[in-house]
């Protein structure tokens, strides 16, 4: 199995706190990887470092064999954690803006997803509920024909229906194209059936990784493995 991402000896600290500590890990190509760990495990920092929002002190990151640069972000869809979209846009305006500035953004697919996700094109972003805005964020990421999709906490703090809609759209997206998806989440129970592969982080260290089905065979559900690791 080829790796989409190879991370070697990555270190990043904030003051005296080590966010990533000599982290070496890889993410398989064409699969959905669940990036799991408690708060402060380094999940967000790791995902940010893939798109250059965080500058590690040492170590290397290779994305499809290439070194990081802003050019590479054309092939990466990134959903920032706790982000918001531009308040003054309507949903339709958001799509047309994304179409203009994001390479390989599929506008007609985005419109389909808007229908499926039950959003109104004329709705102002500032009037959307948290769950509705999260759906819009996911559409902006998944309607792109890119090789790598990074979703940082796409389900955090949103309602059940929005969560289910987002899971549906992730499944749809996997059916339509060969993509590598990395998804960090605390909602393991709801998301774990999506994972091909799982990576557990704690305090910037890799503590376990493996194929989700193999782990289930050996140790039971991913959720129970998580409990065992972090209790």
């Amino acid at each position: 199995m080829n790796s989409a991402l190879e991370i070697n000896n990555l270190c990043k600290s904030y003051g005296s706190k080590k966010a990533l500590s000599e982290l070496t890990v890889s993410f398989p190509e064409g699969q959905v990887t669940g990036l799991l760990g408690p708060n402060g495990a380094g999940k967000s920092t790791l995902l940010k470092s893939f798109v250059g929002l965080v500058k590690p002190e040492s170590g290397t990151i290779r994305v499809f064999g290439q070194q990081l640069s802003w050019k590479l972000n054309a092939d990466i869809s990134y959903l920032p954690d706790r982000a918001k979209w531009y308040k003054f846009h309507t949903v339709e305006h958001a799509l047309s803006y994304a179409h203009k500035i994001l390479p390989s953004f599929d506008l007609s697919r985005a419109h389909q997803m808007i229908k499926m996700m039950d959003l109104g094109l004329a709705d102002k972003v500032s009037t959307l509920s948290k769950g509705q805005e999260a759906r819009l964020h996911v559409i902006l990421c998944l309607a792109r024909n890119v090789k790598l999709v990074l979703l940082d906490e796409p389900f955090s703090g949103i309602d059940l229906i929005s969560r289910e809609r987002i899971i549906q759209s992730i499944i749809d997206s996997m059916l339509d194209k060969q993509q590598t998806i990395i998804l960090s989440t605390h909602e393991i129970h709801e998301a774990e059936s999506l994972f091909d592969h799982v990576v557990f982080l704690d305090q910037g260290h890799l503590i376990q990784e493996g194929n989700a089905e193999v782990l289930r065979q050996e140790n039971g559900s991913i959720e129970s493995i998580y409990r065992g690791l972090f209790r």
Partner: protein
Amino acid sequence: MESFQVGEFTFPLDLSKPLYEQVLQHIRHAVARGDVLLGTKLPSVRDLAQQLKINPNTVMRAYQELDRDHLTETRRGQGTFITSDLNTVSQVKKDLAFEAVQAFVSTMKQLGIDRTTAQSLIKEVEWHE
């Protein structure tokens, strides 16, 4: 454990066991038990993945395995269908029965019961036909 009804199939799904095996076994058992008619169309990979909320790769792997065992056949542009070949079905039934017997034997062994005792137990037990 949650149960999902997809078309003519019911899938109980247990997240503590490999999902691919569960999908595979449910379809095998449904066919062997005669819960679904021969020649029935299987749900599409998309439908099954969406309904069970599982990774489509998992469904695809299970379907490929079924195809390899000739329990299903994929007709171009139409979908995947349960085989109409009775021989294959009876072969699957036999395989599943054999698996069940093997499980039975290993339980007996754990209990310290030997072959003759086990055989006589089978004769004694009521079948409720």
